[in-house]
């Protein structure tokens, strides 16, 4: 990608601006620091929306004022800087898909923001917070900001697959993902600050419906569209192309998801396992430890859980966490085997040009070009493959007439 001065790519200036805003605001109190970070994130988003150009001050001011007002209404000031940063960075990465591609060191610079913000607000008391260990939490935040910084600074860039213009359906997906993520973040923040158990309601409803009903009807759509953990991985790390510290997973683990659960068990081989062992083992931390140590009752647990996932996502290849270790994801793959609708792959139309680099764009590493006529049960309907394919008629919502004919003759 050509970087020109017109585009919003002068990160060093941007960072300098943020640092000044943070420093000035820190002279007052944490409230302004939080608001400053929100505004900075907003500027980043606005710049992306406005064709990657820096906004004028007059255009920026009303938006900053609006966000500042919003912070007053929803008590954003109580959110700690790490979370705020994750929202901002996530939004930035989602919207600006090419910015950090193959440039991990530039991405590393951005992680300076939470480091600086945390350092500046370390001694600021969270006056209304119900937690009695804010400083410990800030230290953890600092640590979790430094780890990505170090990992990205030492990372080796990897060439990224070419990006095509974004499809409307993908834009819609991103909006849905962002909304659910924000809802989760708000619920978590309220739970953390106010000491309430409101996040249990969110996860209770989420689990009940995304385990017990929806997977049978719409398969793994939830993994692509609704899951906050998946959104965070998409947002923060999808477009960071670098060689991950743990870039290879043992073959025995990798092979499970390709051979056992979602494909051959049941009708083909009754003795084959329904779900991969590693995914089943991942249920233990979820249910066993949570119950034994009553973790869901601890207000720090959801935040710590998300931070843990964030670090793992940084170390493992993108979405490997979902593909190989998420218990909900595996269950949805099993339950969604006879789901009502799948994305169509018109095999007769595929030129086998390999320009799409299909396995790399798919969150579940599906070998798309080798499918027969539709995507397998592991598909999460994120439409990334459709976006990556240079032709419009290969991956479609409905089966092409030629493909119908081909299937009839088989």
């Amino acid at each position, binding site marked *: 990608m050509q970087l020109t001065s017109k585009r919003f790519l002068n990160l060093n200036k941007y960072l300098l601006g943020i640092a000044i805003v943070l420093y000035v605001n820190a002279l007052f109190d944490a409230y302004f620091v939080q608001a400053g970070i929100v505004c900075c994130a907003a500027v980043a988003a606005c710049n992306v929306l406005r064709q990657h150009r820096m906004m004028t001050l007059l255009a920026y001011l009303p938006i900053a004022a609006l966000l500042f007002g919003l912070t007053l209404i929803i008590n954003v000031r109580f959110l700690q800087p790490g979370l705020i940063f994750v929202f901002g960075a996530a939004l930035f990465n989602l919207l600006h898909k090419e910015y950090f591609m193959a440039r991990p060191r530039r991405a590393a610079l951005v992680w300076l923001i939470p480091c600086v913000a945390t350092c500046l607000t370390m001694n600021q008391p969270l006056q209304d917070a119900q937690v009695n260990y804010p400083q410990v939490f800030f230290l953890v935040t600092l640590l979790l900001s430094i780890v990505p910084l170090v990992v990205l600074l030492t990372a080796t860039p990897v060439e990224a697959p070419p990006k095509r213009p974004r499809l409307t359906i993908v834009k819609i997906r991103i909006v849905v993902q962002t909304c659910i993520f924000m809802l989760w973040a708000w619920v978590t923040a309220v739970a953390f600050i106010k000491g309430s158990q409101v996040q249990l309601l969110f996860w209770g409803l989420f689990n009940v419906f995304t385990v017990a009903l929806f997977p049978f009807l719409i398969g793994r759509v939830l993994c692509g569209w609704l899951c906050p953990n998946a959104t965070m991985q998409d947002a923060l790390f999808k477009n960071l192309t670098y060689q991950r510290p743990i870039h290879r997973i043992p*073959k025995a*683990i990798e*092979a*499970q998801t390709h051979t056992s*659960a979602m494909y051959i068990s049941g009708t*083909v081989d009754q003795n084959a396992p*329904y779900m*991969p062992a590693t995914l089943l*083992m991942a249920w233990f931390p979820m249910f066993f430890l949570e*119950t034994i140590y009553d973790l869901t009752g601890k207000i720090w647990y959801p935040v710590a859980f998300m931070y843990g996932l964030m670090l793992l996502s940084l170390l493992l290849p993108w979405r490997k966490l979902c593909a190989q270790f998420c218990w909900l994801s595996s269950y949805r793959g099993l339950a969604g085997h006879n789901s009502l609708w799948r994305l169509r792959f018109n095999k007769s139309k595929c030129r086998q040009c390999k320009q799409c680099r299909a396995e790399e764009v798919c969150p579940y590493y599906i070998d798309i070009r080798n499918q027969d006529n539709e995507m397998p049960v592991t598909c999460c309907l994120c439409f990334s493959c459709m976006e990556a394919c240079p032709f419009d008629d290969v991956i479609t919502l409905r089966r092409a007439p030629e493909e119908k004919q081909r299937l009839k003759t088989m």
Partner: protein
Amino acid sequence: MEQNYKTPLAAWARALEIFIPAYMFGKSWGVADARTVDLFRAQFPPFFIDMAELLKEVLSTDIESLRLFVATTAGAVVGFLVLMLLALVNHLVMADRTYINSLRFTAVTLIPIAVLNGTLSHGVKTLVEKMGTLDAVALYKSAVITPWSYFGLNVVFYTTGLWFFGRRVGISRGRRKYVVLTGICFMLLYLACGLMITPAEWKVLLPKLQQSLSH
């Protein structure tokens, strides 16, 4: 096409497919403590709670995490027994596979109910721990006035799961209808045994609950 596949870690997966849903299904029955045991007896089939309480007495301890470990394990043992019985019925109805495969199928179909059980027990436990007078009213409303919605959710989720998992594991359509019928009977029996609180139970339960909360 090859009929038998050598999948990595398959033996582990098959074992976990049975034990994890059984654990999830039963653990809720064991997590009651002195303050909530009466509530749990009203909420779930009481003999499951009593069985779990009996097993818990085998190893009593003051260490909280160990106590919870024993409690959930006791619940899980009861869950496993229920699962084995239900799998036996399903095995006879399906009549086309080994018992161990019927057990795996039955275990997987219980996951939606296990999630509902877990949500209910955990939600109620948390509510009780934080409870004041107002929350007692909220608990009353959610547990007594709206049991039918929970009842409906259980039946819909379980039968949907049975039908789709049945298709997934290759049960013929004719047999699948009987499997679903068996599932509905089990669910009705399970719910009739005491899932959710009746107003009559609440009248007895409330003074006990208030007494335990006042300590």
